[in-house]
């Protein structure tokens, strides 16, 4: 097992190196004027020359690459061309908001999706199964932006129950001492015991969270159902039943455990994907996460930021995939 994990980590490092290399060279060969972005649109020739030196653009491409890799090993992703802020600091500021949103959305997905899949499998071809399947298909196929706007209209405009966006209310932002420990407000407010702020933050995260969780709820539900149905048809389940074990016991104790592996892999991959693809939901709910940072970096060809975000996405994807694989590999039936 340990050998397997080490092997996977080493291959992951190679993948990351590949991602960095490809992104670095693509961003450098794209036609753009990073020095203009750095020094300002109306900079003089002297200012532009100074900018080229500061950005290392006066060096050859291989030299720039080696310097970048050296800096990267020290955790330095360079500075954003737009605001001259270190990309590492920018990521540290935006990532927790997205992480909090996505983790909660996937918790919702697991809490709602798995029971839905289980009951759907248990009541195969009954009314509950049909309803569950219609819901799952709807959840997977409804456009995110439509769901987001619909929820805003219902819960903010019509019912006036939940806020339309942001992470905290205006009053809390201005007058409260908002804690910043992990950057995840729900966690930080709990750690500091600020329950008022926790509720405020929870109210703000609900709508974007529901929007993001719809797809994984549908996915988890369908994956759980199909995996369970396959397992419920296997010989050991029939044997168990013939020994007089109840259907419920067979389902919860023997079938569900064996169906989790497939679902876990899909959830992990879906989560990795979602972490870097929340920009639409973040834009609609004014959620200051990595999504808005990505879209700004891409539209302005801020290449240090682009590489930083790409690297972040790749790390998330690889780590989550690794966790899922280790989880599956822990099953003694799986040969490594």
């Amino acid at each position, binding site marked *: 097992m340990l050998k397997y994990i080490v092997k996977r980590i080493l291959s992951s490092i190679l993948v990351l190196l590949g991602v960095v290399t490809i992104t670095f060279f693509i961003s450098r060969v*794209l*036609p*753009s*004027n*990073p020095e*203009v972005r750095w*020094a*300002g*649109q*109306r*900079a*003089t*020739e*002297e*200012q532009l020359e*100074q900018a080229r030196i500061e950005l290392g653009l006066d060096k050859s491409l291989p030299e720039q690459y080696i310097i970048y890799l050296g800096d990267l090993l020290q955790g330095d992703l360079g500075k954003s061309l*737009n*605001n*001259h*802020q*270190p990309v590492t*600091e920018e990521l540290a*500021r935006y990532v927790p908001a997205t992480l909090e949103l996505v983790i909660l959305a996937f918790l919702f997905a697991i*809490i*709602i999706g798995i*029971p839905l899949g289980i009951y759907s499998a248990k009541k195969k071809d009954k009314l509950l199964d049909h309803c569950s399947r219609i819901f799952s298909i709807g959840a997977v196929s409804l456009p995110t932006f439509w769901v987001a706007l619909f929820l*805003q209209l219902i*819960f*903010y*405009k019509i019912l006036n*129950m*939940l*806020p*339309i*966006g*942001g992470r*905290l*209310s*205006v*009053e*809390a*932002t*201005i*007058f*409260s001492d908002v804690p910043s420990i992990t950057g995840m407000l729900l966690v930080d407010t709990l750690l500091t015991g*600020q329950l*008022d*702020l926790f*509720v*405020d933050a*929870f*109210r703000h995260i609900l709508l974007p969270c529901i929007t993001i969780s719809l797809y994984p709820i549908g996915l988890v539900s369908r994956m759980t159902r199909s995996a369970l149905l396959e397992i419920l048809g296997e010989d050991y389940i029939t044997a168990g039943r013939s020994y007089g074990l109840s259907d419920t016991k067979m389902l*919860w104790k023997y079938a569900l455990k064996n169906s989790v592996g497939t679902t876990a892999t899909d959830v992990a991959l879906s989560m990795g994907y979602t972490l870097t693809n929340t920009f639409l939901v973040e834009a*609609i709910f*004014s959620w*200051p996460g990595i999504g*808005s940072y990505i879209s*700004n970096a891409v*539209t302005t*060809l801020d290449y240090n930021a682009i590489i930083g975000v790409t690297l972040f996405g790749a790390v998330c994807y690889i780590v989550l995939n690794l966790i899922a694989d280790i989880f599956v590999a822990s099953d003694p039936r799986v040969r490594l």
Partner: protein
Amino acid sequence: MKKLLSLVLALAMVFCLAACGESSGDGTTASASPADNKILYHTTNTEPYITLDPSTEYSNGIMVLQNVYETLTRYNPETGEVDPLLATEWSSNDDGTVWVFQLRDDVTFHDGTQMTSQQVVNSITRTMELGQGGAYIWDAVLESNGGKIEATGDYEVTITCGYPAAMDLITSAGYAAYIMSDSVIEQTTEWFNEGNDGGTGPYTIAQASGDTVVLRAYEDYRGGWTDDQYKNVMIRQVPESSARRQMLETGECQISGDFSATDLAALKEETDIVYTEQFETFNNIVMFLNTQTYPCNNADFRRALAYAFPYEETVTSILNGNAQQSVGMVPEGLWGHSDEIMQYTCDMDKAAEYLELSGVDPSTVSLTVTYISSYDEYASALQIFQANLRQLGIDLELRGMEWDQQWAQAQNTNPEDRQDLFVFIWWPDYPDPVSWFQSLLHSEDNIVYNLSYLNDPELDALIDSAISKTVTDREGAEADYIAAQQIVAENAYVLNLYDQMHTFVVSNTIQGVAENPAYSQAIQYYNVTTVAE
């Protein structure tokens, strides 16, 4: 496990339902007075700043900086002149190379220190040394150009320019002209971006987090505070137009702008909740015609293009009245503007007439226009232009690009590889028409912004003459600029498409929202007050 799952689900549902109830206090302080707790909430569609460094910020940050920092002078759109702000008066020698500014003696920075001439000198020196953003406005003061800035008294600053420069206008710039405390002179951009400041303005920065800025009243501001003013201001990016609209409708925010046509039309109907305020800006959209290559090197062909552009349709249908057709290069309201300058209208008969005069066979012509792809309004206007040109048999390719790429192509060393037409927005960094003429129309050895690639000695002479007269003979300078604009229009070197207007939608509960065209996007929150019941 089943029971545990049911319990977790039930608890989660109860908590969600509880959270859906209307929020109570949100942890606000109970001890502060009602005036202290009042919040002015302004939502924007873009981030409220790129950086908060008063020396280098050259973008949206003007929304914040205009309320936190002050400049020596300030442009007054009603008089068209600059008014005193941190300076009380100023004078220059005959040729505008030496300027003496007298300063107020009652100004304190947010750190409590008093403003003196040395801090003014240090602020401007910092900006010049950093050399970023709008710092180029101080070129005449650079030592390498023979200029210098010095404190010649406790409250007197003398600026010596290497060549004549309108320092009274330059010191009023919305970027790179802010005065800051000595305690922040050595600080980095990162430090400012953390929400620190060192200004003299009515507000200090209480929080800054990328999409949100919170401003808090500087209690010792020399103008004082009244109960109907707002001591807390929050500027937050809310990218979705429909979300900003709903926030105005529910009364959650009080100021917003940049709405989609549908949302703006709906808000205009809701007069019991909000009202709209429209302001002229000095931003104008221009189209450069590549005068160096075929077929735009033919004056009559350029005139044909000028008559084929859908000016009125762009202003009315695409921009819904949020603009007005330009007359000349200089927007209305700024000195150097004249309504007498020739302007084209969309007239397809005249376009056909000039096309014939040009002798250009349209079937052999395929033009390319480049524009910044993120501006949908450019694409919409250009699509109509494309359809109009098709009626003349001219093929036009629309190429939406990122600014960097658009500009890189325009500067290509091979003229044949450059675009035929180039659309972009221009605005002055301080209220002086020189910006349009020197940068966009004057001949230059290395192409920077002269993107019609002009080399017209008559035009150059007029521009040089106007610049030399700006300080000593403003009327003469104005006459030269008007004559220069007439030449540009008659030769269709550049098509002046439209001047932008900004529309704010404002809650009926407040008044005093205004935008000064010299400081586009910025609202002076100090002037915003509640409407008496």
